[in-house]
């Protein structure tokens, strides 16, 4: 079969909608269809000669990890069995690896097992598609979905779960719950639970599997749609993986048991497709577990729910990325008041503004244009420290256009 060299205009036009379809599956708030998921899992287990697993569904990955830890309590061998089974399941699903294609195409894969499954499909896809087309497809579908589903959701979730399941369980289970118990029972149960739940690690991530895999599954599926042909075995594996990944947010296979998480009920993005929630969580699960992010930056929940940061907190927040987010949330103009900005030049026209200099913690002097917009709101705009006048600042903010041109304004709203 001749290689497919490029997309037709119609196929190219289909890409955004195709990508959106998978985003909607992953982030559209769909609940698990138990019957369908059970069927896909039965097929997956059958591939490795295992009986159909019992399926336990929880509302969030956090709840799943708690459940897994509870299942594991007192059964030390289960952890090892779990990892062995997972390896077996995925190596069988993935079957043979085209190592040459694998090494050429994916130098930074999340894990070898993960790649085995993926590269088998990709090897067939790649052998039928021109390399340029292959790259185009991957960048249009794979990498964009990757950055949204895995890089953001995956890593945000990873870091949040790790920190919250550790420290929050410490404070919630240990400090709060058991503070109500009698002192002796408190110390005994508290320390015991602490050691089991926290010290041994609640994080059951390893590599999370589920809806975030849709980014690469979409690439495989689109290749099939435009004419690539997989052998029967691979096509069946693709169906199974897509079926499982489309149903659940995350899943963890065990001997005879699968723990699966529902997908988020709501995901909010900004226009750059960064997780973003201005008045609440950016990601919410049905049980209340949530992520709070500001343009992709993880932030404390209170900042966008009930207690925004104060200017002093924003300027001295230890994490620089979160500090930047805090300043955006409360607005630079509030901060200027707080830090006692020094005026270097004042145009006398609030709309044209005044040039100020502030001394930001860790950043040193920073010049800003303090101006009123047409809606009456005050803005503080970062400008290069090289500017000395308001006119220069306005010009710099508008592409170097002379201030005389900008000031010759009919209307400013």
């Amino acid at each position, binding site marked *: 079969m001749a290689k497919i060299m490029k997309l037709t205009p119609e196929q190219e036009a289909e890409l955004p909608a195709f990508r959106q379809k998978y985003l909607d599956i992953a982030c559209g708030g769909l609940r698990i269809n138990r019957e369908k998921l059970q069927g896909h899992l039965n097929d997956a287990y059958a591939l490795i000669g295992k009986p159909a697993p019992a399926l336990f569904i929880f509302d969030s990955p956090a709840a799943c990890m708690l459940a897994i830890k509870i299942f594991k309590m007192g059964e030390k061998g289960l952890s090892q069995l779990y990892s062995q089974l997972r390896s077996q399941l995925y190596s069988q699903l993935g079957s043979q690896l085209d190592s040459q294609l694998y090494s050429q195409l994916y130098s930074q894969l999340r894990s070898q097992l993960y790649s085995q499954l993926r590269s088998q499909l990709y090897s067939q896809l790649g052998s039928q598609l021109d390399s340029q087309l292959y790259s185009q497809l991957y960048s249009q579908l794979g990498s964009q979905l990757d950055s949204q589903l895995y890089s953001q959701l995956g890593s945000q979730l990873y870091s949040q779960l790790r920190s919250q399941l550790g420290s929050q369980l410490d404070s919630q289970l240990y400090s709060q719950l058991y503070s109500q118990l009698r002192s002796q029972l408190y110390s005994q149960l508290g320390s015991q639970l602490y050691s089991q739940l926290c010290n041994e690690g609640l994080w059951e991530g390893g590599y999370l599997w589920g809806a975030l895999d849709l980014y690469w599954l979409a690439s495989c599926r689109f290749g099939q749609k435009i004419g690539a042909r997989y052998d029967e075995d691979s096509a069946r594996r693709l169906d199974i993986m897509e079926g499982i990944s489309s149903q659940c947010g995350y899943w963890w296979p065990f001997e005879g048991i699968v723990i699966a998480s529902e997908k988020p009920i709501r995901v909010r993005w900004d226009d*750059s497709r960064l997780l973003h929630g*201005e008045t609440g969580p950016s990601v919410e699960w049905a049980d209340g577990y949530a992520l709070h992010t500001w343009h992709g930056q993880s932030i404390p929940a209170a900042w966008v729910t009930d207690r925004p940061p104060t200017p002093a907190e924003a300027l001295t927040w230890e994490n620089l990325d979160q500090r930047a987010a805090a300043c955006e949330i409360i607005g630079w103009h509030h901060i200027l008041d707080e830090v006692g900005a020094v005026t270097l030049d004042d145009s006398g026209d609030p709309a044209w503004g005044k040039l100020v200099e502030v001394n930001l913690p860790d950043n040193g002097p920073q010049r800003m244009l303090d101006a009123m917009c*047409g809606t009456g709101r005050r803005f503080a705009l970062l*400008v290069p420290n090289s500017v000395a006048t308001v006119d220069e600042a306005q010009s710099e903010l*508008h592409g170097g*256009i002379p201030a005389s041109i900008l000031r010759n*304004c*009919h*209307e400013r709203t």
Partner: protein
Amino acid sequence: MKFDFDTSRKSHAQGDVYLIPIVAIPAEALAQPVEAEAGKLIVTHSETGHHHIVMERPDVKMFRGMDMFRDFLLIENNPATLEHLRDHHTHAPQEIQPGAYLIQRQRQPSPEGWQRASD
């Protein structure tokens, strides 16, 4: 792209965008028309969806400029209205007279260089 300012006409400023009169749309830009989205020419894109727009019309055309900060707008025959799509803190609409305009969007410095001022 080369263009000359038309200082006989005044600019319009709405939020973080200027419409600055120019003598003519550069020839290179004329070859790169910007398509309307749902009947709207998006003069400045807002990441929160609060775009500054001009309604699509056969005699109102937008052209791709030099970079993310600059595009061009051509209004023929009758005035057009520059609108801000937000139901709170709305920048008041402005009537824009026929003519050629540079769309100049606000920018801000960052460690990575100049970036679009986002709203």
